[in-house]
């Protein structure tokens, strides 16, 4: 039989999972255990020395988690993956592998507010310095490169504005600078965009959003594209130099094109500790099985709602890359032909007060700080997710004070439009 490549939906259901060897259980079991017995002293020693594949302790790996990791790696077209307790934890682990105190990384200005906070405050206290660049101005990335630059970080579809980033153009800057390109693919999911196909070396996700999809579990993941040569110079000693705690093994030499994922596990998870719980791995894994169906519905609903909003007399502007005439529509056609996602912002002619009013009148949309749920969600970013930024930074991040953000769920679109319609009708 010749090898064939199964489609995305087949991988979403099957990749990484196999009926359980002892019971034959078809669904992936929840291995709710902290630790695993060794066969004998030699087996234990070879596991600890990274000579054998296997389980030691759930802080480093767990069989339910491993299925989740292989599945996301397969969907993204990566060589391996590592799941973490949250998307934020994934980012800490990635940067800890790449940066030493005093090093820099270039980050797109249009990011999830939580990432901007993490980079500005926590990372700064570690001595990791974010240098900001504008994803609408590729040259600003080139200008930001310095001898201290160790990585470039962007979002494929940026939160909250739903703008599309020109991944290939920024990948070219990263290649020229000799540093890896890290892409947060949370809003797109691999169903809409596969950043590795466009030059990303590392992909990160908050699994909490569309991948898990049901708003019930936190999780994050790091996907290794297997494309970056960590040993070409001395910039990434964690991957290229002998590791004292593992008796001097060199990670890239030993693990080849999935060495980064291994480093994140055996150094990052081991030492920093943000392991995902087996139960969350199970719930997210179950969510991923329906990812293609959900993303189709999310995108179909979003297209209908943004078109309806754009023609509503109370609406000043709708920012959605999937709309004809949107500033990012050409990039959306190139990178996300199946749909531009389900998160967007819009502003009302009545300004900030009208936005606050709208949020309070909605009956089906939930007012909360999350995206990528089966349920439709609404928030006012300027007073919540992006509240720690000043007004100028809010606008640069795509969260101007008069904007309302929606995350469209998989309900019937007619009901969502009816809810928006009644909320927009002011009954003074």
């Amino acid at each position: 039989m010749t090898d064939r490549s199964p489609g995305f939906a087949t991988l979403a259901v099957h990749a990484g999972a196999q009926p359980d060897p002892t019971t034959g259980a078809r669904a992936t079991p929840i291995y709710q255990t902290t630790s695993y017995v060794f066969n004998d002293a030699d087996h234990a020693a070879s596991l600890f020395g990274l000579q054998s594949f296997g389980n030691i302790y759930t802080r480093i790996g767990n069989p339910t988690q491993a299925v989740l990791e292989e599945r996301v790696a397969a969907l993204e077209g990566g060589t391996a993956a590592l799941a973490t307790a949250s998307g934020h934890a994934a980012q800490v682990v990635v940067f800890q592998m790449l940066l030493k105190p005093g090093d820099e990384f270039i980050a797109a200005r249009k990011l999830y507010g939580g990432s901007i906070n993490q980079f500005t405050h926590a990372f700064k206290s570690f001595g990791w310095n974010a240098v900001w660049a504008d994803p609408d101005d590729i040259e600003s990335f080139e200008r930001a490169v310095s001898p201290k630059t160790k990585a470039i970080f962007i979002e494929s579809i940026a939160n909250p504005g739903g703008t599309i980033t020109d991944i290939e153009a920024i990948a070219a800057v990263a290649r020229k600078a000799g540093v890896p390109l890290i892409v947060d693919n949370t809003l797109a999911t691999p169903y809409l965009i596969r950043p590795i196909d466009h030059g990303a070396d590392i992909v990160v996700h908050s699994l909490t959003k569309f991948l898990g999809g049901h708003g019930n579990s936190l999780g994050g993941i790091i996907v290794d594209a297997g494309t970056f040569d960590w040993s070409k110079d001395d910039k990434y000693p964690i991957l290229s130099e002998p590791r004292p705690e593992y008796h001097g093994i060199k990670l890239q030499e030993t693990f080849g094109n999935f060495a980064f994922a291994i480093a994140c596990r055996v150094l990052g998870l081991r030492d920093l500790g943000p392991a995902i719980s087996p139960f969350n791995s199970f719930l997210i894994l179950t969510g991923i099985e329906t990812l293609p169906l959900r993303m189709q519905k999310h995108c179909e609903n979003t297209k209908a709602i943004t078109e309806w909003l754009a023609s509503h007399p109370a609406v000043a502007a709708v920012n959605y890359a999937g709309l004809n005439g949107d500033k990012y529509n050409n990039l959306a056609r190139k990178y996300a032909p199946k749909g531009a996602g389900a998160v967007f912002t819009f502003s009302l002619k009545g300004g900030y007060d009208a936005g606050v009013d709208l949020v309070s009148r909605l009956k089906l949309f939930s007012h909360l700080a999350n995206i990528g749920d089966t349920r439709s969600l609404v928030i006012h970013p300027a007073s919540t997710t992006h509240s720690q930024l000043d007004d100028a930074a809010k606008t640069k991040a795509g969260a101007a004070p008069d904007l309302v953000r929606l995350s469209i769920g998989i309900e019937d679109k007619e009901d969502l439009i009816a809810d928006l319609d009644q909320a927009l009708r002011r009954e003074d």
Partner: protein
Amino acid sequence: MNHDSYDDNYIRGILNSVKSIAMVGASPVNVRPSYFAFKYLAQRGYDMIPVNPGHVGKSLLGKPFVASLLDIDRPVDMVDIFRNSTNIMPAVDEALKMMPLPKVIWMQLGARDDAAAEKAEAAGMKVVMNRCPKIEYGRLSSEISWMGVNSRTLSSKRAPMPTQGMRLSLGRTSVGGGATSAADRAAKNRTDPS
């Protein structure tokens, strides 16, 4: 043949058919990749022979070192070369003098010598370059999935009970390697300094 990427059936066929493997450059130092691979393959039931002139008189996991491929007293199915790219040709030349001729020349992860590969193929041997047999065995048996690695295989059959020292099933359905085409392309670009 194309050595930028391999069909899983090609690798699977090799790992399923060879029984004895001579490892050129096997190291007794237990943190070297060659030691990892030697031990792993021995545990999976392969008859392993360590070849390293610097360690003659000693043994590796109970197997005595030999100085050269030509000092091996039994037929060898596969020669696994744990040397860097510049030291591949002498090992292949030595393998070509063996009687009977080995069936497979395997060059370790990071090692590639297209001229040596062509010579071995002209003599009727199969060649694999820039791969690790331990990683490939772990991938095709899905054992490597325990580390979150993309095995690029699928199966709806009950998994075998993994116990130390057993030969695991390599008969899973392959996903065709397409899922990591980006990694294969990057490896090719590294070996083609154009």
